[in-house]
């Protein structure tokens, strides 16, 4: 898994590449903890994400809790990952943009 962050005008974009599973999720957790701070917007860019296990879903849900009323969005979601959001009920919880 590779993670790239970009901060711009209070917006943090976290681009994740590869797989988020129980081995890689702790790294993503660490990065969110260290980077999020006072950001008003959090974007997860999943353009190059192949798979997300429930350890990864927990990070997304946790981040959404942490964001509270601040904006959080998951963008460029591919079919495989979107199917996971659908089957787990997360498509009702997260603000998701499917990859065109």
């Amino acid at each position, binding site marked *: 898994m590779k993670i790239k962050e970009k901060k711009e005008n209070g917006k943090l974009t976290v681009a994740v590449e590869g797989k988020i*599973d129980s081995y890689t999720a702790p790294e993503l*957790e660490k990065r969110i*903890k260290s980077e999020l701070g006072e950001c008003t917007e959090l974007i997860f860019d999943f353009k190059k994400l192949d798979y997300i*296990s*429930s350890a990864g*879903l927990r990070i997304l849900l*946790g981040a959404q809790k942490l964001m509270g009323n601040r904006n959080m969005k998951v963008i460029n979601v591919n079919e495989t990952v979107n199917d996971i959001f659908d089957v*787990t009920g997360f*498509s009702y919880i997260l603000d998701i943009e499917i990859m065109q």
Partner: protein
Amino acid sequence: MNNEYDYAMERRLRELSPELHKRFAESVFGLQNILSNYLLIFPTFTDHTELHSLNVIDFCNKIIGAQLEKLNADEIYSLLMGCYFHDTGMGITAKDYKEFSREIDFGDYFETHCRENISDIIRDFHNEFSGRFLKKYSALFDIPSEEHLKAIIQISRGHRKTDLTDENEYPIALPVSGGNTICLPYLSALIRLADEIDVAAGRNLSFLYQTDLLTNEKDIIEFGKHEAIKEVFVCEDRFILAVDTDEEFVYNNIKKMASKMQKTIDDCQRAVTNRTPYTITQTSIEIRSTKEQK
């Protein structure tokens, strides 16, 4: 990394019954904030929100393994719902506490415990409170029938303490409309085991829980154990706690916890092996140092 059983129940439910799957998925949305209410009563407790529910589902998927083929849609729906609802009793309101505690059989609990210590009572009987919560608020979650509700209540209650060998409370074939039956002892044993083994560090996301601010000794011990357990592996014949600590005190507490887990495994084994056509293949718990693994 073997992801073979990831989301297995959720996928199977969608395949067998898109209608029940939709009800489940919509309930996940409805439960979001409700599960966080426990923080009002237990602000320093380990995670009991839907983040924990996700782990419980994940462990259930792993423990069930290939036996999923034998479960019908009503059983999968009831178990998934139970995984999400089993700790709702931890976050009940004061008004509901009064109402629910009139219906709960506390046995001889108050011979040794104080009636005024409500948070202790809620913690010790939260499975019963979860059951009452479900009964009262079931209409919010579009549960399809009284029989499904009964199953979800019993599975939620069954995540701790209840006697899974009791045929009246936990029948092996609870009939539901449509002709299916629900095997309550197996499903309850699964959630009990899955809940018990959710003890690894990942349970409490570091950006949500500031463990360095804890002052209560019990909380410090609890979080300390979780922090030292890096991963829980579900193997074919056992559960493995991968532990990384040099502190004897923490290690001894993990050993104590593992003994308690072994008792839960034995109880679940007894209920499932003697009463159902299913098997729980994991018969023991092992503590393994992460240093050994390296």
